[in-house]
């Protein structure tokens, strides 16, 4: 069996292929620490259920680097590409 070398490594959510599932490890909110730029996003992503340890399944991406559709906690979310790139996941073996 071929093994993808992405396994067990932290990759951005956008590296997942359609139908692949990963576990959220962290959200890199961007420049600055704490409440700098992007703090609001991190909080909002958490509030939408993307907390560390949560399983996320990528359903599909919109073309031309559009948003990503994911399944989280039984509901369907659309995440902007820039946002999805900051969510890091561990691909489930």
């Amino acid at each position, binding site marked *: 069996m071929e093994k993808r070398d992405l396994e067990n490594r932290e990759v951005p959510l956008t590296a997942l292929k359609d139908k692949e599932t990963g576990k959220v490890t*962290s959200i890199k909110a961007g420049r600055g620490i704490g*409440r700098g*730029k*992007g703090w*609001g*996003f*991190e*909080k*909002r*992503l*958490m*509030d*939408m*259920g993307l*907390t*560390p*340890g*949560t399983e996320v399944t990528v359903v*599909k991406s*919109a*073309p*031309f*680097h*559009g*948003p990503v*559709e994911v399944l989280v*906690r*039984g*509901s*369907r*979310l*659309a*995440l*902007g*590409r*820039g*946002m999805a790139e900051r969510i890091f996941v561990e691909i489930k073996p």
Partner: protein
Amino acid sequence: MTQKKLLIALAGNANVGKSVIFNYLTGLHQHIGNWPGKTVERAEGTLHYKGYTIDIIDLPGIYSLSTYSLEELVSRKYITVERPDIVINVVDASVLERNLFFTLQLMELETPMVIALNQIDMAKSKGIQIDVKKLEKLLGVPVLPTVAVKGVGITKLLEKAIETVEKGAVEKHPRAIYGEEVEERIEKLMPMLSNIHLLYPQRYAAIKLLEGDEEIEQEVSRIDKQIVAAAKKLADEIRSLHGHACSTVITSERYELAGCIARNAQKLVSPIKPTWSERLHNITTHRIGGYIVLASSLLLIFYAIFTFGGYTSELLNNFFYEWEPLVKGAVGAGIASELLWGGVIEGIIAGTTIVLPYIIPFYLILYFLENSGYLSRIAFLMDNVMHKMGLHGKAFIPLMLGYGCNVPACLGCRIMETHRERLLAAFVTTLVPCAARTVIILGLVGNFLGFQWALGLYVFNLVMIFALGRLAFKVVPGEPTALIMEMPDYRLPHAKTILKQTWFRVAEFIKIAFPLIIAGSLVLKLAEIAGLLEPITGVLSPVTVAWLGLPAVAGITLIFGILRKELALIMLAALLGTTNFALVLTPVQMVVFTLVAMFYIPCTATIAALVREFRWKKALFITVFEIVFAIFLGGIAFRLLTLFM
């Protein structure tokens, strides 16, 4: 006997059927406005039931009670300051975990509450069965199953709410219990808060301090800075224990708890097979098919609205003007009759011929799309494009509305999350050529220069929208925007809710736009009677004649256009004495005139909408900017086009 009063608040996530329940309960006794000083919609209604006068307030649909968005802040403040007698938490049974995350936060506010477990029919068709009794026990809050679109369970829900209020205060509020490390620190913080007076319950304040909630930190530090410092220290302890920020830990644990309750109370029965809603979702978000569906629906919608609108608008116009001799005859000749007809009545006609033919169908379709769930798919497909102008996918919706009328489009910017995004979206929206401007574009350039010229102007307009959108995005400070949006399951929209939403929107439009349109007509009529139009033409001529290369009368027409854009063209015909513009205008003049009319100012009704949403200063700024921009652009175009044409 005096009437007993009751205040009920409806709270819950977006798209859970809150507004359907609200409409079901309140019928036509509704008032829709804004929260004081906020661009957040506030829907209130009244209901009489069993000797009670019940005021119902529909809080905005939110996912959390933190302070990320205006909606969240407004809702939290309302529950803690206004203290409704009871909160009805509307919960989507088919997405229980996410919904309970919000429920747990409501419970922390220690407000009396009941839960409406809505859309149980949809949950069932997705293979989710919920044990209502068990859920009730796990939460410690009454739970009532409802199917709001069919009116099932609403009366029982209301009765349970009243019963819960009548029973009075509970001894101990049910609450979410966190992990040991967090609980320990909440316990440590609580005694420090016991001596100070806060709007919020002590435990809630303690949790929020650990989460680093800015608003509560500010409130507490005004009384005692030490407490905030202590909370920060405790939060740091949790961070080093868990390796994540304390707010992350608390949110995680809250979600775990919600998930645990959901899993305990629900049973997944039949294997999940694709339902019609699922299939529709796959088609409408398909990387190719999705865009085809989107483009064809938009074309169809616009074609239908413009055909219907054009026809009805003319019919209404003819109908109204048949009355002109009669009215004038009744009042007699003279200034009074001129003012009455030319000012007041023509203002009313102007408004009516926009509202009935265009605004009503627009809203009906909009709410149909919104309630069915399609709007979120449009936002998904268009996110990418909207990012190019610094906005995210949801902004496409007001932009699309703008092609019909800018007023609902400006109000529609409320779907954006932050004030900044709302302002940026509204600014861009006012540049979109609405139905009235389309009349000018097609009537002048389209008719006399050919369709390709009209199309060219539309494309140019889009380019300008992009450019100005980007510019505004760079200039206005704030966080970048990003799309985080739930895409709810498709469902059949509830006809009555759509009708009511449309009705209240139209009423709002009339309230905002009519007084201004009438006042504007009166002022112009007065200016005309006073013989001020001639001198104004003279004053404007350096701009209109020298800079823009237009005939002198164009200045007056553009002033009338502020009232209603298509008046600019109608007046132009009247003042030039012909509708065959080819005889009196050069092709360059036609293009320049249309270009200026396209950008030069939001119409009075749109300005009113901007003032209402963003206050005078910002509305004025947008207005002045657009005037200057349009004149600048027109002058450049005049010079460039003269070289070619």
